[in-house]
């Protein structure tokens, strides 16, 4: 059976990975990450540059597959007592690793106790709290931080004689013109992230009880609310009118629809910027995530997606010194600025953002600044993010609900009621497991 072989392979990989260390004079620091393709190349460059910059530590960056694969590899290694020093964990997995009491060394403590120092105010407001505990102590170091943006095909909008929309009301006004010009108006790549989580942040609406799940694992989902039902009723209408394209769950399939010029506007991640620059053979622009004027007059900022770096417990003091040293290097303005430029992920510290401004980066490419501007928009009570267990499965339940809405299989309220039921059962399981 495939699964069993998989487990054994993981265990074997963990053993090999663990025993490879400690053969060099320099202290080896293992970093397991989930950055493939171009992003993986950039990560390898970061590791090389770091190793060249000093001789005390040797950073070994290993690609472990997608976000979920990386987390699973980390879990298997931890259980086999061969955990890497640093692991990249994505937004939806944050609750799993943070709630496992005593699995990770909070990054704020790690930095403070190993001579680097830590001040959360150095970080830009949109990334400060997402990977923090309920006392705002940072547990994971935000690494690749992105935020949802609207990308638009400049030629398409010009052909239809319209401007990129600020609000969804604007969108409804311009969509018929884009259709006339031969385009589907909109597609998007991650409906749980963009049309649910950040929808709540943008409109300052609570998405789960217990302070969006930050205060306790005893939380209930609050997605089944009038605003979401209104929004998804509209999305279904847009689909039926030919204004909205749904190309499946896969991120790339929806992005392709934009790259191929089939849809005029696409909601994606600020981290898609670098890749789009290479793949799209037309001029495109970026703008803020639209909002409903009917729900909020002044929209709030969004919160980050992407992933953070966590440090597992159980390593020596000397090794943690190395981790702290690397984190210091990674968060330096120069290193953040180059990461930002290469990938489109936002710089996580204000110092790095200032450096990008003084270097004149945004004068040449103003579109690259939209993500960080959106993250820096005034926050509201519900813009800091969420901390919910079994969130990977909850996102599956959301995808299911949205697909059932779009296929016409269920009515919008039915789909939301089913999703709420399924999500709350998962949250209850998580609460009972982790307490």
């Amino acid at each position: 059976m495939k699964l069993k072989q998989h487990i054994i392979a993981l265990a074997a990989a963990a053993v090999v990975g663990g025993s490879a260390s400690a053969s060099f004079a320099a202290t080896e620091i293992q970093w397991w990450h989930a950055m493939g393709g171009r992003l993986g190349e950039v990560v390898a460059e970061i590791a090389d540059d770091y190793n060249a910059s000093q001789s005390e530590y040797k950073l070994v960056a290993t690609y472990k597959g997608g976000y979920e694969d990386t987390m699973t590899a980390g879990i298997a290694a931890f259980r086999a007592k061969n955990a890497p020093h640093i692991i990249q964990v994505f937004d939806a997995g944050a609750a799993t690793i943070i709630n496992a009491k005593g699995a990770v060394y909070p990054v704020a403590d790690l930095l403070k106790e190993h001579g680097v120092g830590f001040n959360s105010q150095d970080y830009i407001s949109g990334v400060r709290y997402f990977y923090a505990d309920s006392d705002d102590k940072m547990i994971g170091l935000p690494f690749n931080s992105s935020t949802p943006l609207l990308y638009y095909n400049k030629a398409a909008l010009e052909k239809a004689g319209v401007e990129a929309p600020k609000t969804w009301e604007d969108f409804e006004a311009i969509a018929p013109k884009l259709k006339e010009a031969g385009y589907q108006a909109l597609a998007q790549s991650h409906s749980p992230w963009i049309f649910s989580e950040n929808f709540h942040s943008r409109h300052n609406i609570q998405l789960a009880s217990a302070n969006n799940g930050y205060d306790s694992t005893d939380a209930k989902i609050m997605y089944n609310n009038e605003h979401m039902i209104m929004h998804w009723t509209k999305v279904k209408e847009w689909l039926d009118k030919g204004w909205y394209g749904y190309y499946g769950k896969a991120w790339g399939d929806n992005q392709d629809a934009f790259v191929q010029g089939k849809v005029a506007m696409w909601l994606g991640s600020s981290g898609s910027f670098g890749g789009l620059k290479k793949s799209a053979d037309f001029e495109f622009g970026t703008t803020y995530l639209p909002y409903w004027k009917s729900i909020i007059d002044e929209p709030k900022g969004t919160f980050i997606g992407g992933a953070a770096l966590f440090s597992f417990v159980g390593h020596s003091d000397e090794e943690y010194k190395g981790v702290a040293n690397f984190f210091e290097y990674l968060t330096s303005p120069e290193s953040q600025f180059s990461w930002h430029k290469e990938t489109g992920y936002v710089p996580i510290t204000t110092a790095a953002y200032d450096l990008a401004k003084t270097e004149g980066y945004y004068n040449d490419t103003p579109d690259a600044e939209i993500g960080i501007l959106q993250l820096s928009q005034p926050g509201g009570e519900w813009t800091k993010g969420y901390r919910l267990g079994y969130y990977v499965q909850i996102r599956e339940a959301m995808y299911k609900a949205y697909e059932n809405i779009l296929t016409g299989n269920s009515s919008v309220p039915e789909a939301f009621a089913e999703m709420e039921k399924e999500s709350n059962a998962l949250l209850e399981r998580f609460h009972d497991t982790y307490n």
Partner: protein
Amino acid sequence: MKRVQFERSTVPYFFVAPQIAIIAVFFLWPAGQAIYQSFLLEDAFGISSQFVWFRNYEDTILNYAWLQSAGFTVVFSSLVTFFSLAIALLLAVKANEVLHGSSSYKTMLMWAYAVAPPVAGLMGNLMFNPFIGDLYAAMNAMGWDFNQKLDAFDAGFVVILISVWKQVSVNFIFFLSGLQGIPKGVMEAATLDCRSPTKRFWTITFPLLAPTTFFLMVINITYAFFETFGIIDTTTRGAPGGATNTLVYKVYTDGFLGADLGGSSAQSVILMLMVLALTVFQFRFIERKVHY
């Protein structure tokens, strides 16, 4: 009947030992672990753990998502098994009758055998891509408003088509060698007695192929249950709305992606029991009708 008693020797045990060891390490031990885990509510990192009896079974089996997935698995497995056997049998019978260039026909029909399920899935995914997929374009050109992303029937069609395509060549090889194993004399005698080739096929050839068909049926059901995982993962991933989520794919998403070890263990134990029951059923009731 007279019983022959041989002297007992320990030598045979040495010969079966490697097989026993493999079964123990790759099946018994992991299966035991799965059963043990299925009674635990344990965090992913194994820091805290509690024994909860059948809680995991109640939580993960008694809900709509599991039942939907079980329903799809049954329909999917039946269709994949039926069509991959039927098409392979038809091709084998036809290829067996070809006189000129028969070996090149046979070789070409066997080619797909070497394709692994995930690769078949990736190829299918490209052929059904809404922008560059030829099959996608062909379906729509024929007037079928085909969209596997938003239509459960179409998505089911895609995964079944790919799974059948991948399996036909395996079945073809077995059917062909089965056909070649039928004695010429029997066939010639049948030709003298009956003029209709169809009737000859159903009364003589098909019963003589029964052992092969039975063996292939067991293999194909196992294939449809487990190995199609790679095809689902590279095409629909259970979408839309969980309509193409097979049981084994759900075990994977809950356990490996969602880090719910207890829940996915419980599901895999149930899956194991289902396959066990099915195998017992096949050997007790269907194999009786097979004459070797």
